[in-house]
């Protein structure tokens, strides 16, 4: 990010102005106030309120009962929680395929033939449509009776598999659906990165006879590192946010085998009226996400200073 260069609390030519009331001191706060207020009410305060709630037993209507760490104790003893947690890890690990796949497609498409703009747009398409539609589209694709995937499997002599009804395969099936838009997103980040490569460095490397993989690995990928950083950040966030697809494709089933923390939390709070317990699940998810938030902020603050 570019350095904010100029001094704004500028040297004032009118010495009579008292510092406290200078408009350049007041104005930024007035500009910030509306956004800060709504952001505080709807984002900052709820985070702390949820953490607080996770120490209570509460059905959402009646009185709250303080139970200390009991929600967490129950959570760590619960099979559903560990299933959701390990599914979240699986999402995280497999989602890391999105940046390299996106890069591969970007390299494939980074040409200037006729109609390439339309092709790039069509590749990006899955990111633009709602995840609910993506979920629907893939439910179809996987359907054991008429889904295109099974038609293909049968065509090649295999037996049809009901991916979304199979406890072992279901999470992989949903993750594949999630990767579809995520790869599209990474691809667009890399296409922009490739557009802004330093031509001189590439030419110099070409003179030194670097090409193909060597060129890619030593010259191009290092130059793409800002795009890689953003791609990894959005991919991690995307993996941990995996709610929409689980909700539309399986509702966590069969028998809770495809649930993730985000969905488990929703289920406990909305269907089982266990607000405190749900909040505890959310806090765990939040703590996992915090690792990445902290890393991102650390990098950002460092680059600003």
């Amino acid at each position: 990010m570019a350095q904010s260069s100029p001094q704004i609390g500028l040297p004032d030519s009118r010495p009579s102005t008292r510092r406290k009331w200078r408009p350049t001191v007041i104005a930024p706060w007035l500009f910030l106030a509306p956004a800060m207020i709504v952001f505080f009410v709807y984002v900052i305060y709820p985070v702390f309120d949820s953490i607080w709630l996770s120490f209570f037993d509460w059905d959402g209507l009646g009185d709250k009962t303080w139970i200390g760490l009991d929600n967490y104790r129950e959570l760590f003893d619960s099979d559903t929680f560990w299933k959701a947690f390990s599914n979240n890890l699986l999402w995280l690990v497999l989602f890391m395929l999105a940046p390299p796949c996106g890069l591969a497609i970007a390299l494939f498409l980074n040409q200037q033939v006729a109609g390439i703009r339309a092709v790039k747009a069509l590749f990006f398409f899955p990111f633009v449509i709602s995840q609910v539609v993506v979920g629907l589209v893939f439910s179809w694709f996987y359907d054991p009776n008429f889904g295109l995937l099974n038609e293909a499997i049968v065509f090649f002599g295999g037996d049809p598999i009901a991916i979304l009804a199979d406890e072992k395969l279901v999470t992989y099936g949903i993750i594949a659906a999630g990767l579809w838009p995520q790869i599209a997103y990474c691809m667009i980040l890399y296409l922009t990165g490739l557009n802004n490569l330093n031509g001189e460095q590439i030419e110099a490397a070409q003179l030194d006879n670097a090409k193909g993989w060597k060129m890619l690995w030593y010259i191009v990928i290092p130059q793409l590192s800002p795009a890689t950083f953003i791609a990894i950040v959005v991919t991690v966030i995307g993996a941990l946010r995996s709610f929409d697809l689980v909700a539309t494709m399986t509702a966590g089933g069969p028998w809770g085998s495809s649930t993730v923390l985000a969905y488990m939390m929703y289920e406990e709070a909305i269907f089982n009226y266990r607000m405190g317990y749900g909040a505890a699940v959310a806090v765990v998810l939040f703590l996992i996400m915090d690792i990445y938030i902290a890393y991102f902020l650390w990098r950002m603050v460092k680059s600003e200073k």
Partner: protein
Amino acid sequence: MFPRPIEKASKGVNISYRIALVASIVLWLLPLLAVMATSVRSLGDINEGNYWGWPSEWMLIENYTQVFTSTPMAQYLMNSLIITLPAVAGAVALSTLAGYALAKYQFKANIWIFATFIAGNFVPFQILMIPVRDLTISFGLYDTHWAIIFFHIAFQSGFCTLFMRNFIVGLPTELIESARVEGVSEFKIFFHIVLPLVRPATAALAVLVFTFIWNDFFWALVLVQSDEVRPVTAGLSALQGQWLASWQLISAGAVVAALPPVILFFTMQRHFIAGLTLGATKG
């Protein structure tokens, strides 16, 4: 440029590259094409298991008309518009103000406020869910359009402020300073100097945030429940449960629900990508 421009390669390579492009795009969009193919079939075809053969009759107009006449799809689409437009306007307006303050004024808390906006933007929705639902109920807004609108304005102002701040930082400061020396008030500087300069960025941001909000599913589940206010994502998900056997209708509904952001994307492609990739080129 990397990889090497394909024009410089032999004719054979050029032709096979173009064939590979078409083949890969068909493969990439295959799941979607399947849905589109289903949406023009008749119920008869579906009952007979004719999913992939040539449709016995084309039901394009009938199916899409039926989506609007026998399901509340039109209402859902309208709700999505009623929610999305003010939410986009609100988030962009608030964040332009905030982004300007963070970009062009220096004060101690600046970077920490900026960091808070960014961090809040990454937070998982679930940790906000119960308190936001309670707040919405206590404001008397539960199951109204405003419930979702207010939440989106607040939440998106995190991302939008990050976006606007990074754009405004790059604007020249000389204009602002010379206006200040002339004695122009801070508000006039914002409205008459800064605002015209950020217009292209607000367009990019608006297109992007429109898609985010239109496609939101979680808050549509949590903050509203009746068909009168439900946006199209939650509506489609409800229809999926009710119209289980009528695949041709669900698929037509899915296509309709996806259409507005898709149209926006194709008409405003440059803005959209500029918005999405801000920060992907500079560290």
